[in-house]
């Protein structure tokens, strides 16, 4: 009586409903392509081929996915504690300083496997620090985290402008970036992983950060579902009044959660800086912090959902770039529209088809039962 939505079998909940949402999103995207006078089928071909057609393309897809796994995890961790961290963008951006400092300091005389852990630490520290303040304001002053984290994105952008202009840019250089790192600041590509499948990574910047992303996913799962801290976070996220009753210190959990979230968002910086460009450039985050929100939503804030959702957005980025390249009348902005549609249908309108699907599933299983009964009789 109290549950108007029936509990659905797992394959419907986690398989069928997201799939239907996705299909509808692509169908509408197809209409948009049709509207500009291009063939949706051709676009679909370029999308799929561009994302999976070659080892190199797959490498690019997974390179993007790596970035989105981190920002998705960051949003998910905060979400479990009932916090909506929109500041992944800024946290990742500022974390770039941590990565850059580690590389600039050590790259000339240390191998990558020494620099990498230091850079991870640096990224986490700077990301966590940037998330600490909004968390602390929320915990102590009640300033809403959604507002403050958005504000901190802007502050981060200005700060990084300053840092790259005045502090980190080599003397005499015209472009807003650090110097290019030596070998110690360059992460190895995952050629060996691709070659297991008989593929070549080519020029794709698919690097060891991907493995770190997988490890972080597992770490987040352990944290949320297997530790006392995760238990307290989830209690607070579901019911702040129950958390108070249980003696869970709200302020402490808010601050710690935001710092973990910021650290995860921060690790995203490793991927482009040490894995692709080997230097920190202006605007290297490129909206990945916001994509993380969609990834967390689609992935239901669970690492097992976030990884495929991140790969899906990797496909949209890589395949989308391919469409823009192959079909000149479809600009990059069109790709943004398609991504927006996926976010709209898979995130915001997640429940739109649920009642209909529920009815269909129930009718089907109901019929199955009566048929079984008829057979039995």
């Amino acid at each position, binding site marked *: *009586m*109290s*549950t*108007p*939505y*029936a*509990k659905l079998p797992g394959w419907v909940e986690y398989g069928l409903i997201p799939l239907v949402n996705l299909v509808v999103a692509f169908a509408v995207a197809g209409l948009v392509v049709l509207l500009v006078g291009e063939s949706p089928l051709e676009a679909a071909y370029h999308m799929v081929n561009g994302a999976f057609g070659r080892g190199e393309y797959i490498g690019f897809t997974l390179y993007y996915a790596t970035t989105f796994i981190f920002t998705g995890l960051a949003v998910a961790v905060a979400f479990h504690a009932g916090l909506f961290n929109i500041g992944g963008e800024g946290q990742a951006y500022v974390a770039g300083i941590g990565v850059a400092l580690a590389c600039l300091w050590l790259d000339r005389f240390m191998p990558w496997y020494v620099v990498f852990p230091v850079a991870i630490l640096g990224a986490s520290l700077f990301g966590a620090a940037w998330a600490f303040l909004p968390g602390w304001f929320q915990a102590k002053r009640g300033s809403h985290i959604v507002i403050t984290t958005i504000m901190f994105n802007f502050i981060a952008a200005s700060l990084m402008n300053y840092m790259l202009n005045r502090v980190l840019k080599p003397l005499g250089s015209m472009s807003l970036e650090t110097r290019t790192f030596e070998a110690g600041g360059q992460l190895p590509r995952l050629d060996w992983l691709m070659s297991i499948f008989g593929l070549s990574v080519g020029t794709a910047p698919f690097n060891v950060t991907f493995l770190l992303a997988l490890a972080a996913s597992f770490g987040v799962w*352990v944290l949320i579902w*297997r*530790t*006392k801290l995760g*238990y*307290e976070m*989830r*209690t607070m996220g*579901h*019911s702040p*009044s*129950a958390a*108070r*009753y*249980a*003696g*869970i210190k709200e302020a402490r959990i808010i601050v710690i959660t935001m710092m973990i979230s910021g650290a995860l968002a921060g690790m995203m910086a490793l991927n482009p800086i040490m894995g692709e460009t080997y230097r920190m450039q202006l605007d290297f985050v490129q909206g990945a912090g916001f994509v993380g929100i969609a990834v967390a939503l689609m992935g239901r804030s669970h690492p097992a959902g976030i990884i495929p959702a991140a790969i899906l957005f990797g496909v949209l980025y890589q395949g989308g770039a391919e469409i823009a390249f192959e079909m000149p009348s479809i600009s990059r902005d069109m790709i943004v529209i398609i991504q927006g549609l996926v976010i709209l249908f898979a995130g915001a309108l997640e429940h739109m088809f649920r009642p209909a699907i*529920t009815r269909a599933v*129930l009718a089907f299983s109901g019929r199955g039962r009566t048929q079984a009964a008829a057979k039995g009789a």
Partner: protein
Amino acid sequence: MDELAIELKGIDKSFGLVHANKDINLKVRKGTIHGIIGENGAGKSTLMSILYGFYQADRGEILVDGRAIDIRDPNTAITAGIGMVHQHFMLVENFTVLENVMLGAEESWILNAGISRARAELKRLEKEYALDVNPDAVIEELPVGLQQRVEILKALYRRADILILDEPTGVLTPAEADHLFRILEQLKAQGKTIILITHKLREIMAITDEVSVMRRGEMVATRETAKTSVEELAELMVGRRVLLRVEKGEAHPGEVKLSVKNLTVRDSRGVTMVDDVSFDLHAGEIVGIAGVAGNGQSELLEAISGIRRAVSGKVHLGGEAIDVTGHADPAELRWRGLAHVPEDRHHVGLVLKFEESENAILGYHDDPKYRKGFVLDIDAIRADAEANIQKYDIRPPNARLKTANFSGGNQQKIVLAREMERDPDVLIIGQPTRGVDVGAIEFIHKRIIEMRDQGKAVLLVSVELDEIRALSDRILVMFAGRVVGERKPDASEGDLGLLMAGVEGPKEAAE
């Protein structure tokens, strides 16, 4: 008088896999008071929501005054002459009585003409049914009893001939409830038909002409009230014989386990909710706090258990002070032997989205025995949860099921098991049986008495006066944040009722 006001034929309603109403047939005779009883989740509210148009039945027919009507929304129901008084009032708190009554029946987009018409109509209704309410009073300033009258007036203003009341006495003092019953009698005398939904058997016996019993979505029986008994109805509701009285021996109070001195608590708006309250709680006794909901009982429990800061006062637990005005910590108090079953299990006592086993450690998740290195020892947690499931007969016996999927009674057992199995010295219990089915009530009451007999000090808050009287060894009555009197459990209901209403009765010696 054999005309039917309402006839339901074969009403069937499912929510997904939950079959809330199964082929319900019901006949309500015109000009009678018809009771509908059943445990929580029996489908009473669903049935009435269908009648009032909130839900659509999957199958079945509704006949009002002999005519079949397709009730698609509350407006159709109102047009058909059906009015509903909800358990939680649907009033705009800062509107006047008149404005609330008019709301949704303004008649035109300029209010003036409507207002004077409404005022005249309201006067007539008040006179006809002896429903005195000042039309210009603001709702939030009225006591709940009067607010409820406004709800009734709203229905009558919309020319309701059939009035559905959903658990109307839950928020009323005994005196207010009596007054409500007189109003209902009056309405009946004027030819109105009344459907009364309740789980209180006494009310059914006191006021209804006929009573229908629901159990697990089915209508199991309809009886003439005069020809049935409380015992029969209880048995019909539960499906087996139930013990309505609690068996309980003499209390043997020991030393003071919890002492509260001059405790004052204010809410977030600065309103004093607990006002200079003092009492002692001894080992081996149950002290009941009676009172109408909202008179400071909740805040008292929260302050003692460290959830809410007190403004002033001292509380000692087993001789040691609790820092109630400063940094009292619910987690720390648990380790010091204070267990707390909160009033609101849905929002406070449980996290409904958690698995049963996760709720079985809420507040005790710090316990080292649930930890294995850095991570939680899931096996130990589940083992403990399963032991409690066995001992408290929690159904379904599945520690991995989501807590929201347990019935109210079983949810309450999850909380009770968690708090009682820690061998606390002091047990604070708020509303132990709110929304709990009759069968589980019996079990819960027994467990509470057992705790007392094991020498625990039990502080009990309940808005069910019967429960307070049945369980307590001493009764404190709270009104407007103060303890206005102490009575023995054999004090008369009238005496307690006066105290609960804030009318000081003659002082009876308590000890």
